[in-house]
């Protein structure tokens, strides 16, 4: 019995690292970002954008790559007030999708986080490890998506190929 799973690398997404005072961020960004998640390691989504709450005063905004310039224009990182930091990081992460009936089994090889539905739900997103590398993980309808630092992309692809073999 081999693993019934598929994995796909990329494409990159539009990503912006947001740090600083939440109220100032909210005022500056306005309706261009989804509502702030109420709890850490959760995300919200609206209008084709996702907002991940990843640390104290730290969020990541995600959109499809085609909307990167639009996000940049709307968020105006270089003009943002000093209390907040908005940095484009679209190329920092390489995303992978692991899908199929055995997706959870493959993720249990790669990831020490408890990804069982009882502990990690549809609105959860957290930094954890994938094959020992820092990664941001969330659920997909038929599996999981994680993003690792792009320079490790080839290694992660090689690891996944070994895991599913």
């Amino acid at each position: 019995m081999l693993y019934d799973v598929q994995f796909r690398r990329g494409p990159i997404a539009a990503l912006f690292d947001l740090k600083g005072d939440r109220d100032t961020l909210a005022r500056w960004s306005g309706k261009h970002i989804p509502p702030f998640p109420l709890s850490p390691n959760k995300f919200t989504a609206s209008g084709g954008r996702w907002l991940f709450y990843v640390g104290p005063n730290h969020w990541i905004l995600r959109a499809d790559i085609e909307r990167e310039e639009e996000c940049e224009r709307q968020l105006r990182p270089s003009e943002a007030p000093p209390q907040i930091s908005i940095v484009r990081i679209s190329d920092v992460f390489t995303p992978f999708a692991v899908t199929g009936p055995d997706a959870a089994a493959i993720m249990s090889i790669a990831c020490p986080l408890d990804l069982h539905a009882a502990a990690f739900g549809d609105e959860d997103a957290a930094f954890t490890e994938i094959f020992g590398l820092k990664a941001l993980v969330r659920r997909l309808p038929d599996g999981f998506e994680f993003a690792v630092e792009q320079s490790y992309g080839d290694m992660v692809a090689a690891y996944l190929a070994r895991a599913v073999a």
Partner: protein
Amino acid sequence: MSGENRLPAGGRIDRSRKVSFQFNGRTYHGYEGDTLASALIANGVSVTARSFKYHRPRGIVGSGVEEPASLVELEGADASGNQPITTVRIRNGLRVRSVNCWPSPQFDLGAVNQLFASLIPAGFYYKTFKWPDWQLFEPTIRRAAGLASAPSAPPPHGHFETRNAHADVLIAGAGPAGLIAALAAGRAGARVFLADEGPEPGGSLLNRNLVIAGRPATDWVGEVSRELAAMDNVVHLQNATVWAYREHNLLIVNERAPAHETVLERNWQVRARQVICATGAIERPMVFINNDRPGAMLASAAQAYVNRYAALPGRRAVVFTNNDSAYSAAADMKAAGIDIAAIIDSRDCVPAGIGRQVPGIKILKGHVVTAAKGYRRVRSVTVSARNGGASQSIQCDLLAHSGGWNPAVHLFSQSRGTLRYDDAIAGFVPDAPAQSTHSAGAAAGLMALNEALASGARAGHQAASLAGFDADIVEIPDAHEEPYAIEPLWRVEAPGPRGKAFLDIQNDVTVDDIHLAMREGYATVEHVKRYTTGGMGIDQGKTGNINIIGAVAARKGARMQDIGTTTFRSPYTPVSFGAIAGLREGGVHLPYRHTPVTAWNQTNGAVMYEAGARWQRPGYFPCEGEGFQDTVNRECRAVRERVGVYDGSPLGTFELKGRDVGRFLDFIYTNVMSSLQVGNGRYGIMLSDDGLILDDGVAFRVGEYRWIVSTSTGNADAMHQHMERIAQVERPQWEVMITNVTSQWNNATVCGPRARAVVEALGTDIDLSPEAFAFMALRDGTVAGLPARVARVSFTGELSFEINVAPRHMRKLWDAVMEVGAPFGIEPVGSEANHVLRVEKGFLSLGHEVDGTADPHDLGMSWVMSRKKADFMGKRSVALRRAGGAARRELVGLLPVDPNTPIPEGAPLTPKGRREATEGLVTACVWSVANSRWVALALLKDGHSRQGETAYARLKDRVIPVTVTAPVFYDPSGELLRS
């Protein structure tokens, strides 16, 4: 021989599937479900091993992981290290051989050791083989020691795997206590992880003829197993040993032969909210003369072989015991057709109910076996009353003995729970847990079946409740077993025969060895263990440790609880390295990082290796027929005379934002950064708290409150942590936000006299003129049609443009640079050439000149140590260190007097080249194409004041004279890089 000792029916073997295997070169037959031990017993094989030190003939003692006597090595595709004979499952084509014997266990030349037994007691190597030199004897002794060999090749097919899992309740052991606990927790809805080392659930129930709810106990096992299998919230693994219990309820499980085509073994790291140790108990032997002879076997093992494997370990048995459990073993052996000559019970009184289990069998109460007779097989035993008197000899070929039961507290103890001695069972039991741990059944000292079931049900309920589940009390099925009773007998001391009485059968440790250790002052149990190696074998003393403690207690006249146990350590049973490593082998053994140019480098023949922080970088680009030095020279010449390009992407890059970034940078750098204008940068050095150089790099100001900080490649992560620690811990009130953008920007650095021309040819909207774009400036714009950020920095000492683009554009940029640069004679440059070029310039490098002892003054960089700033990190430490006025090692250049003589990097410099304490070392030495000679950098005591002097590099075989110079060999004024 084929099955001469096989019962015609019964057992949990599949008689429809006959199996053929080889043992020490001979072919035998067994059945699916047999272990190697049971199959050999069925084939009448007695001698299966030779002992570690004395090479005494040994047979099979146990029936599971506790086996101390017989280790084997698997051959061929199954090649393995040491395996207990009782845990190897036979299959067609299996080839196995005994370890530590030659040519065979039946006839072993190593038996000559027995002639010298008195010369090699425990610890002999501390006292003998000293003259003239221990090292003369050591290799021979080491070769003689050791057992099986490690396999010389990986398994021909399949791979290992590791997995992470989480559970509300992890249960170690699927015997009666573990199964009912799993039922309780599983029915409550908890996520249950149940792991058991055996091939099928049931534990000791598989070896005995017990009844649960009026039916055979194995029927109950099957029923429970089926219910657990139907629960989605239960993971139930067999052939899975929980081998480690770590902090925060992390347990590690080794699953052998998982149901997967290509996975050989699977290692699970399980984090559990609650843990139940239902690990059962392990029988210990009796201690008497020659208790190691083939045919002397644990009573429970004999019971297992007749009941579970339908194999007769003998035809005529004597049973020797100090507790009740051996009586049911005797009854089962008799029912299987073994003639029980007598039960020798060291106790004066035996409970009546126990005696009723063995009608018609002679019981000698208050008697002991003083010795076993026989060499390759037990022939008889010598028996006498415990308090002395005449002895008698009883003929037998099987001696089944039981010294009591040790609760398997290994995991509980690994969890740092404490133990206490329970007089009722003469064993150590769990006392206070240190983590969320429960013990149930025999592991908790509850030996009877009804007790095991009740405690397992309680533990399952409690664990599930504590994990937050509403658990009902599971109904406990009716089961009855006589309560367990024992009168401990730690060794037979009746006068009589002389010889060796073994405590640790695997490591050949005897009672006399324990007494010797104690006489020599090693009287605590930890010292006894290490001095005698008792309990240090592969079996980790599972059968012997408590007897050793008993022997120490008896000798000292102390209580068992005052002696205590040694520390239990993982693994509980041996685990293959492959299972621990999992997928982390071959190409992914170590992490590696690529840039978008890596594929181009590989295609173009670059020699790649790690150059800091897991980045794979090109060392050099050899052409056909070139040697290493030729290649490096060619690349250096390209940069010095025309133009080169290298991939500088791995450099650490961070964006800092906030009102306090200016003073933050002033604090972490030695020089002033807050005065930078937007668009400009400055080279700086960061010190640690104790004034040593942490890193160097360039900081650019890109906005009023925005900065870009670069670090070295290898230190990028460390510098990120350093900055975050200061921002979060030391200066939390400062408004500083740090974002790692190392992988948001890749760069192609074009360097050399023609660099400006190449960048212009690429097409850019940035004014590249020196007036508009000075050295250490930063400009945003487009290059080659791509959004870019260009910096004028230089690591080579030449005019350089560091073109930063997003990684998605990097390959396009690189290809454009190579194409456009071709007419200018561009060449790709690797790390080796970069190293040469920076040495020529005297630029410092972490790990070379920055060696963990040098401060900026030592490196001639006093200019970077601000005198204006009241404070910065490391300032005080530098001053304190230098306040004593002691001589310092200072950066200098060295020119070998013979220009064609290289000096190895790291070579010491000694006064006049004499063999004495060094006064410095060579930090780098390269062939300088600019100077057509070898040049070097060094740290030399009082180096700054010694220019023009001759110093000496002392090598093993010669001394190399060098002239001390300034540490720069090219463009000392920096005119070129500022052009």
